[in-house]
């Protein structure tokens, strides 16, 4: 009889059962809202085409741009309007340029876009049906790094409605295009944002990048390189090249948030750190920024 209490204890004691773990409360992430990059969708310009009129003359290209922007909208992301920026730019003398490459660069630079997506449309007309291919390429404005590349195909149909085929082609690749871009964003979150730092010397300066400077008497280029190495996020940087008069870092990774304050970190803040470093070497500088490129002129 003494056995029964023991049996009851075994039965209800959970022998052979899995005890549920009390789920740990999930700690909500807090802090400063991260400033999102500005993205602009622009049409690809072929030889002989004019960026100013390319959309006016072809409704199907307008459909392609709209469908791409719709894909960004569906992810809750707002893009910079290409047509509005083009109109704003047309007010300025800069629009007098005949070179389409210059025009595109000016448009992207003046828009303040951190990233841009170039959309090319190719129409295929055959006896066995018509098709449209769309080529989407996403670039970092400052570094020119490619963020995402996809080709969408509508498939062949017996139709003259190229707008419908273009729409189908974009839908075929837009999600994957955005997913690839998001993977690159994750890399930025984990490993820092890329900025470009361009050091040059003022014309009146007697210094060169080989001049020995600072307490250790190292060449200026080495002082700068060692400092950049210490400041770059996870020590991640790349030197494009060094001459006597110029030194370009075409990739310097900076954190998204200031590690000390948690505030958004940007190229201007990095410029401030460069200013302090140069001052410690006894040098004065002039700073300029354009998108994510920092121009430092040493006097």
């Amino acid at each position, binding site marked *: 009889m003494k*056995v029964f209490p023991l049996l009851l204890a*075994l039965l209800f004691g959970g022998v*052979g059962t899995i005890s549920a773990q009390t*789920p740990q409360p999930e700690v909500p*992430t807090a802090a400063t809202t991260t400033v*999102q990059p500005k993205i602009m969708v622009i049409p690809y310009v072929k030889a002989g085409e004019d960026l100013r009129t390319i959309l006016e003359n072809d409704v199907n290209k307008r459909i392609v741009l709209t469908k791409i922007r719709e894909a960004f909208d569906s992810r809750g992301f707002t893009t910079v309007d290409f047509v509005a920026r083009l109109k704003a730019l047309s007010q300025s003398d800069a629009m007098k340029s005949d070179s389409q490459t210059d025009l595109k660069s000016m448009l992207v630079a003046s828009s303040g876009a951190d990233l841009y997506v170039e959309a090319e449309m190719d129409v295929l007309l055959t006896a066995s049906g018509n098709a449209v291919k769309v080529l989407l390429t996403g670039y970092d404005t400052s570094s020119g790094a490619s963020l995402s590349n996809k080709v969408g195909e509508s498939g062949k149909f017996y139709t003259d409605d190229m707008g419908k085929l273009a729409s189908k082609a974009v*839908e075929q690749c*837009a999600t*994957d295009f955005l997913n690839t871009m*998001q993977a690159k964003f994750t890399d930025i979150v984990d490993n820092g944002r890329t900025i470009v730092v361009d050091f040059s010397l003022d014309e009146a300066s007697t210094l060169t990048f080989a001049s020995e400077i600072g307490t250790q008497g190292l060449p200026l280029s080495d002082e700068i390189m060692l400092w950049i190495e210490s400041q770059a996020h996870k020590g991640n940087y790349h030197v494009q090249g060094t001459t006597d008069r110029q030194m370009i870092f075409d990739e310097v990774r900076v954190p998204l948030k200031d590690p000390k304050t948690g505030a958004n970190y940007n190229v201007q803040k990095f410029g401030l750190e460069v200013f302090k470093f140069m001052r410690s070497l006894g040098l004065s500088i002039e700073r300029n920024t354009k998108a994510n490129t920092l121009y430092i002129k040493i006097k």
Partner: protein
Amino acid sequence: MKSVFLSLIALLVMSSCSRTTAEFARIVYLTDDRATISMRCTATGDNREKAAQAARREAIKTLLFRGVAGSQQSRPLIEGTEDAALQQHPQYFQQLFEQQHYERFVTQSVVVVPFARNNGEQGKTITLDVRIHLEALRKDLESNGIVRRFGL
């Protein structure tokens, strides 16, 4: 008394042993559009209902942790390993899988091959064509902080 005691022990041991079929699942991409994705899912189970649930659950897990080859969602919705995600968000995934919240994202589930023993497969399997509301699943992950919204 001794025989009663031994019988009870035997009953206890037997009841704690469950008869389960070894798990098996296969996912094949069918079609997708902007908001949904359809897959052909084959899974095993002790009975028809459990096998069908396993098929739908595996479809969701494939989207979350592995991606669906050939589709627009070739990348997994959640970056990193499945184990890391389960450890980081235990409450969410307990509700999603064990409490079957994943069924909310299944818009269609059609039996293609009925529950039966099929050649070359372990145990009895069922094959379903399952359509998942991918956009709703993504938004659910974003609103619960499992994945980041598009952007930085």
